[in-house]
Structure formats: structure tokens, C-alpha cells
């Protein structure tokens, strides 16, 4: 006896729980891999999963096994030239001895000392942002009303054919048919009864004209009954959709970078990663994140991403030029009532001496009151200069919303990033 069962529609991911258990168990290993990946990867491929390797010995499931040594007898196939009594040199490494039949060949490929697997993009990013929380993630009030989502709202008599609610329409039609046919049926039944009565009478007493009249009446009624339409336009009901404004949160992130001659490509690479992490982070917390790239040397300019990261400039540095431009852009395009505003600035700390004070003024008076958060990273192994000192006073003024850190090499980025956005415990 045999029967076939089609299981294809059944749940997949039966192993999801076990997979999660595995990932939890090796959290520390995986995190290390993820951190390395964040530092190593180029910007364009941050948005994918990551291959993670864990040393096999760390995840092995030990059982009692024979070790190398002692006397082993191996039977192997494919003898070509050996005869009994031949002596052979041990194949490299000693003790390996042909490796036949011992303990079953590994199905994970031979000789791997790393257990490798792939994290999905979601899993990867979860590990990247594990334990981090976006500062001041407040939902701005109902944003511009053109951001709406259609929502089902009952049924209506008007609509487009694509949204016909068939069940409701047929129910309406059925009710209408019953209502419209009932009087006709009643009249028909009465006419038939009258006719039967008439025909039942003694032939002498029959009234032929009455019979003819009744027959005509019956015929007319039957036609009317048939003429009641099965479905009519006013039976139709449509699923009603209304547009509901959605409380959504939008964010804009300003990337401000110094591209003066003192910033080397190495500095820029580090800055790049910093921006990228912030962007990924915002993207996960807001439905919509816009990016604005502002680069500056002595003058600031809004550019596209390509130009921001990859073109070179030379010259001196006036930081306030960039901050002024950011201020203008906010005023023009991103009213703070509707947007969450973030600024991330990367620089090597150089600035015209006189300009640092301007920066502080600008931040304190104009920018900080409107921003959600301002992060500043200084990529330099050297001593701090005037800009850092001025920023410190700003930081003292806005301790919750202004963060600054120093980065020396690429490996520092991730810890700095974690530090900046560490989940704030309620104080």
C-alpha cells in the first residue's frame, strides 16, 4: 500500500529555531567576525550577508575516537602495481596512512578546520547593531499628509471593477431577486389556481374567455418572472479603500567631510565607514532616510555621493562654511517639524584658527536647537587643535545630543560607533 502526500506547501524553515540556537550559542564568535567584516568591507557591499567562520574545534561535538598511532589495517580499492610484501613510505604527515574508511569521511568537505556559514543580511545587520539604540528617536508629529496609505474601510456602492466584493454583491442580488419575484410569484400562483378551478368546472359551466384571459395572464407573469435580472448594476458592492495619513518618521542625515589637502585617502576611508554605519543604522529605524553630502575645504558644496567620497581637492580648511551650508539647506528643504535631523561630521581637526569660534557660535545658536543629534569624529593620531576645544564646549552644553570622538585607525570605527550610540539606560 502506498500513498503520496504533497508537502510542498508545508512550512519551510523547520530548522529556524535550531539555527537561531546555534547563532545564540556562538554569539561572541559571530560578533567578532561581524566586527572584522565591518572594518574590512568596502561601502558598496555592506548591504549583504556575511560569511562567518568559526574554528571547528570551538564548535565540535566531541565523541570518543581513535587517535593516531598504534597498528591499523586498511583495506583500499584500486591496486595497480603493489604486490604482497611491498613496503611503502608513509604518505606525508605520518600516521595518515591512506586515510581509508576511518570514522567515515566528513560530509563537510575534507580537512576543513574552519566551520563556515553565511549570515543573512538581516542577521548580519542585527549583529552589527546589536545593543545599539538611536538617540532621541522621537516620532515627529503627523508628517506631511501626502504620505498616506490606502486602508480597507467597509464596502461602498461605487468603485472600480477590480475591487468588486463578490460575496456582498451576490448577496445583494439574491435579496433583490427574492424581493422582486415575490409579488409576481404570488400573482402567478393565484392565476394558476384560478385557472385550475375554472378548468375543473363542468364543461358546460366553463367560461372560455376567462380561461383565455387567465392563460394570457399566466404567460405574462412567467415572462415577468424571467425578466427579473440575475444581477443588476445596483447590486454591485465594492471594497472601499480610504486614504489614511500614516504617522511616519523621516530622517535626513547630513554627511559633512573635510576634503582639504590634509585629509588623506586613508582618512576618507575611515570617514566613509563611519557615515555608512550611521546611514545603515538610521535606515533601520526610520522608514525614510535622506542623505545630504556636504564637503568642504575653504568653501562648502553640496555634492552627490560619488563625488563626496571619490574626488580630490586641495586647499585650506574653513569648517564654518560647511555648517553654514547645512543650516541653509535645513531652512530650505527640511523643516525641523517634519524631519529628524542628524549631522555626522568627519575631519582631521584642522581649521583656520579664527574660524573655530564661528563654528561654535553657529552650532550653539542655530544648529543644535534643531538637530536630533550631532556626531563629530576627528581622524587624527595627533594632538587636538582649536576646533576640538571649541566643540568640547558645545558638547558640555548639549551632553545628550552632541557626541565627539577621536579615531586613529580603521579598527577604531566600530567601537566608537557603538560608544556613540550605546543604548542609554534610564537615568
Amino acid at each position, binding site marked *: 500500500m502506498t500513498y503520496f502526500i504533497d508537502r510542498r506547501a508545508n512550512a519551510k524553515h523547520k530548522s529556524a529555531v535550531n539555527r537561531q540556537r546555534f547563532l545564540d550559542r556562538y554569539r561572541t564568535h559571530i560578533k567578532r567576525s561581524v566586527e572584522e567584516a565591518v572594518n574590512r568591507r568596502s561601502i558598496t557591499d555592506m548591504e549583504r550577508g556575511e560569511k562567518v567562520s568559526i574554528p571547528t574545534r570551538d564548535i565540535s561535538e566531541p565523541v*570518543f575516537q581513535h587517535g593516531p598511532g598504534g597498528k591499523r589495517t586498511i583495506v583500499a580499492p*584500486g591496486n595497480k602495481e603493489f604486490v604482497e610484501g611491498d613496503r611503502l613510505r608513509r604518505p606525508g604527515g605520518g600516521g595518515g596512512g591512506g586515510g581509508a574508511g576511518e570514522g567515515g569521511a566528513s560530509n563537510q568537505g575534507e580537512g576543513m578546520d574552519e*566551520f563556515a556559514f553565511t549570515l543573512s543580511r538581516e542577521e548580519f545587520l542585527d549583529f552589527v547593531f546589536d545593543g545599539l539604540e538611536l538617540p532621541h528617536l522621537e516620532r515627529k508629529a503627523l508628517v506631511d499628509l501626502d504620505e498616506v496609505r490606502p486602508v480597507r474601510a467597509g464596502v461602498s456602492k461605487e468603485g472600480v471593477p477590480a475591487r468588486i466584493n463578490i460575496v456582498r454583491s451576490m448577496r445583494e442580488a439574491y435579496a433583490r431577486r427574492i424581493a422582486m419575484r415575490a409579488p409576481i410569484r404570488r400573482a402567478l400562483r393565484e392565476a394558476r389556481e384560478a385557472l385550475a378551478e375554472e378548468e375543473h368546472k363542468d364543461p358546460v359551466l366553463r367560461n372560455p374567455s376567462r380561461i383565455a384571459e387567465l392563460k394570457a395572464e399566466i404567460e405574462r407573469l412567467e415572462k415577468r418572472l424571467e425578466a427579473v435580472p440575475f444581477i443588476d448594476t445596483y447590486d454591485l458592492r465594492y471594497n472601499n479603500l480610504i486614504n489614511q495619513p500614516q504617522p511616519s518618521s523621516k530622517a535626513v542625515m547630513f554627511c559633512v567631510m573635510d576634503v582639504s589637502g590634509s585629509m588623506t585617502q586613508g582618512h576618507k576611508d575611515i570617514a566613509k565607514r563611519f557615515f555608512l554605519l550611521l546611514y545603515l543604522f538610521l535606515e533601520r529605524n526610520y522608514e525614510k532616510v535622506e542623505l545630504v553630502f556636504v564637503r568642504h575645504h575653504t568653501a562648502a558644496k553640496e555634492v552627490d555621493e560619488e563625488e563626496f567620497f571619490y574626488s580630490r581637492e586641495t586647499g585650506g580648511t574653513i569648517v564654518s562654511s560647511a555648517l553654514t551650508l547645512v543650516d541653509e539647506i535645513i531652512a530650505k528643504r527640511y523643516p525641523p517639524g517634519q524631519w529628524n535631523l542628524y549631522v555626522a561630521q568627519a575631519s582631521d581637526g584642522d581649521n583656520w584658527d579664527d574660524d573655530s569660534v564661528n563654528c561654535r557660535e553657529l552650532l550653539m545658536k542655530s544648529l543644535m536647537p534643531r538637530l536630533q543629534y550631532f556626531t563629530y569624529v576627528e581622524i587624527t593620531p595627533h594632538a587636538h587643535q582649536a576646533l576640538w576645544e571649541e566643540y568640547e564646549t558645545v558638547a558640555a552644553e548639549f551632553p545628550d545630543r552632541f557626541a565627539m570622538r577621536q579615531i586613529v585607525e580603521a579598527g577604531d570605527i566600530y567601537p566608537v560607533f557603538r560608544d556613540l550610540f550605546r543604548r542609554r539606560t534610564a537615568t
Partner: protein
Amino acid sequence: MIRRKPIATGSDWSFEVLEAYEQELVRLADEYRLDTYPNQIEIITTEQMMDAYASVGMPVGYHHWSFGKQFLAVEQAYRRGQMGLAYELVINSDPCIAYLMEENTLMMQVLVMAHACYGHNSFFKGNYLFRTWTDASSIIDYLVFARKYVAECEERHGVTAVEQLLDACHALQNYGVDRYKRPSPISAEEEMRRQKEREEHLQAQVNTLWRTIPGPVASDTLAADQDEEDPLGLHGGERYPPEPQENLLYFIEKNAPLLAPWQREVVRIVRKLAQYFYPQRQTQVMNEGWASFWHYTLMNRLFDEGLVDEGFMLEFLQSHTAVVNQPPFDSAYFSGINPYALGFAIFSDIKRMCEAPTEEDREWFPDTAGGDWIEAVHFAMRNFKDESFIQQYLSPKVIRDLKLFMVVDDDQEEMLEVAAIHDDRGYRRIREALATQYALAVREPNIQVYSADIRGDRSLTLRHVQDSRRPLARSVYPVMRHLHQLWGFPVRLESTMDDDTVARRYQWPLPEEESRSH
């Protein structure tokens, strides 16, 4: 030339076509006296196949990270195209569940049905090891019970506690089987009914064994060996257990001093499942050989009767050849002896020596040569395991065909020695050596419970009997650690030579920790 009326052509399949082929296979299987459990054939997707793989084919199982690891490994290998997924998976249950992957071609589906639903299925039902050790009708229920029980434990005692316990049990699961005693078959209902009862009973037993005040020591042993350190003979009682115990998990379940009742139950679950897989570990060559032999025979019959076309048959032969291919030892593809190849060769050879016996066959296999081949292969399938099967049926012809040779690797010699090749002097020795290679006792170190010090420090001592001076691998330490978790007191392991002298001692916790605490 017969007229071909194939049931279907091309590589697409449908349920109707599969059922039609199924009908034909039943008819042919009957003719060959293949006795099977009912078949439950499930069509599944690739993803589901990977799931099934990860849980060793068990349709339900308790949750454990190691299955997740297995899944990731399978998925990775599959993505890289390193491994085609095996196109079949069959579960020893009644009804016998076989999985077909939806993207298989028609030929593949028919092949899998022949291979799994008639080959493996009849093996599960007929082979003595499976008949003795597993109860196909209750395994699924038992798995469901196990999954529920473990899930309950996780709720009550936390995921981590259960996970650590399972880790420890898994490390010992190959030692969770009575090799020589016939076990009681597992049954889910029985388990649940008796579980409560057992918890209490077990605990009482353990309490008796470990009560702090020992019973009076028999006076004759007291007089017999006087020990200066122990003049009253308090430690001199009978060794416990009196006989070495090979079933470590069973011993732990019944005797570990500190385990809570639910922990004993989990140990039992792992032990019972290990018992279910025990026959499979010992019949790989036979099982795969038997299934390959029958898919080959049945597919050829379908072709002879004109039920499949030439394209189908060519595709089949290509696939079959790949499955039973044995690369030579010096090939890049060599990874040990292919059980499909060896098993298929031996079963085919039994058929050959029945139908066309040679002088050599009559001399080597007087009982089989020239007999009824169907009876002969069934006899072989029913009454052997890999070790004895090879010992009994590996013929000179198969040794010659596979060009088997035997190498002795002795770490006391500088060179390897070719001890035998496929010639008159070598046949018997190769047969002997190959059979031994499949003996479980040789593949896995022989380790037994030697003594539990119930009067002293409660330590547990295991004994490993070295096979041809082969020592234990380094994994012995982590396993000892797991054992220690279960036992709760120091565990020792003595690795002994053939002459009973102890070659090496292991212990956990490690001695330096111990000496520090003294």
C-alpha cells in the same frame, strides 16, 4: 524487439504518472518477494530537504543547536554547489516515509521510489538488527513525545540547562546502546504512562545506592585482603558495578548520584534515540547495497517491459553508475570505500554465483552457488550486518573487480606494508580485514564503565581497551568534561593494553586543579 509503450516520456512528472509507476513497482516487487511496510511518499522542496537533512531525517525532533549547525553546513555546501542534495531520504518507520524532491526529474522520482520505497523499506522490515532493535510503528510517536518532553523541560528549567545536558548526552550517545542484550522496543504511550512511576522508582534506587551509611561489609572479604591503610576493609567491598557496563548512558541514567529526575529522563531519551540509529550504523554497506541492487533490478525490468523509453534508461544508467562508482585509492575523488559500490557489488555477485556459478564459486560458496538467487539475496539481507555480511559473502571475484589490497600501518615500523593483494594468498586475509574494518568495536574505541566508587569519593572510572595499541584521540578531554557534568564527581579513564596493563590515565577535573585543592 519489444514494442515500447512507456507510461510517460520526458523529464516532467505528475502525481498520476508517479502513481502509475508505483503500481508497476508494486507488481514487480511482489514478484521478487520484497516485503515492505506501507509507503508514505512525500513530495517536498529543496528547502524542506535541507531541513530534513539537518535533523538526521527525523521528521520531528527536539531543538538543539547542533541541528542548527548541521543545517548551516548543509545549506553552505548546497549553495556552493559542493554537494547535490541527496535526492532521497527514507525513514525507518511504519509506514515508511520517503521524501522526493520536487525538482527531481521523472526518472529520478521513479529511481528513488525503487531505491527507497522498495529497497530500503524491505531492508528495514527484514533485517534482523532492525527487527531486534527498532520498533518502526512507534518511532514517530516516540519522537513527538521526546520533542514535547524536552520543550517542557526547557520551559521549566531554562534553555541553557537543557542544552548543556543534551550536549553532554550527545557526547556519549554512541555509548548508549546495549550491544549484546536485546532491548525492549520503544513505545511512546508506554513511556508517558510509566514516566512518572519511573521517576520515583529511579530516584529511590539511586538513593539506596548512594546512602551515606554503607551496609555491613561481608565478613569473608574483610578477612581476605587486609590492607594497611584500610584495616577495617571499609573500602574493600565488591566493585560496583560487579561486571563492566558497556552502556554508559544507561549506567548514568540509573546511577548518577546527583541528576534530577527530569535529567535522567532526558538522558533516557537520547539513549533511546541512539538505539534507534544503532542498526543503521552497522548496516550501511548492506542497506545501500541492497537498495541499489533493487533499484537496478527494478529499473531494468521496467525497461524490459517497455514501460520506460531509452532516454529514461540512459539517464538512469548515468545516475546509477555515478552512485556505485568506486574511485581508486590514489584518485582525487577517493574518500574511503563507497558503501553503495561495495554493497551493490556483493549483492550482484550473489545473484551471479546463483545463476552462473564458476568452479571458484562452488569451492568458496558451496551453499549458495547454483541456488535460487532471490532466496539467496533475501537470506543475506535478513541475517547479517556489515561485518558478518562481508565476512560471509565478499568473494574473490569482487576482490579482484575492486582490486582490493590491504596495508598495515604500524607506528612502530618505519614503512607501511602491503600485507595482501587480490590473489589466492590474499583473498581470505583481505576479506577478514575488511570485515573487521566494519566492526563497530573496531571503528569506535571500546570503553566501558569499570567502577563507581560508592564507598569513597564517588568517582567514576571507565576502562578503554586499546585495539592494536591505538590510543584515544584528544577529544577524550572534552568528552570527559561532559561525563563529569553528568556524573557530578571526578571521572577517570584508564586506557589499557591487551594484557590489562594501564597504558595511560585520564581524569577530569584535571589533576593540577585537584592538587591545588588538596
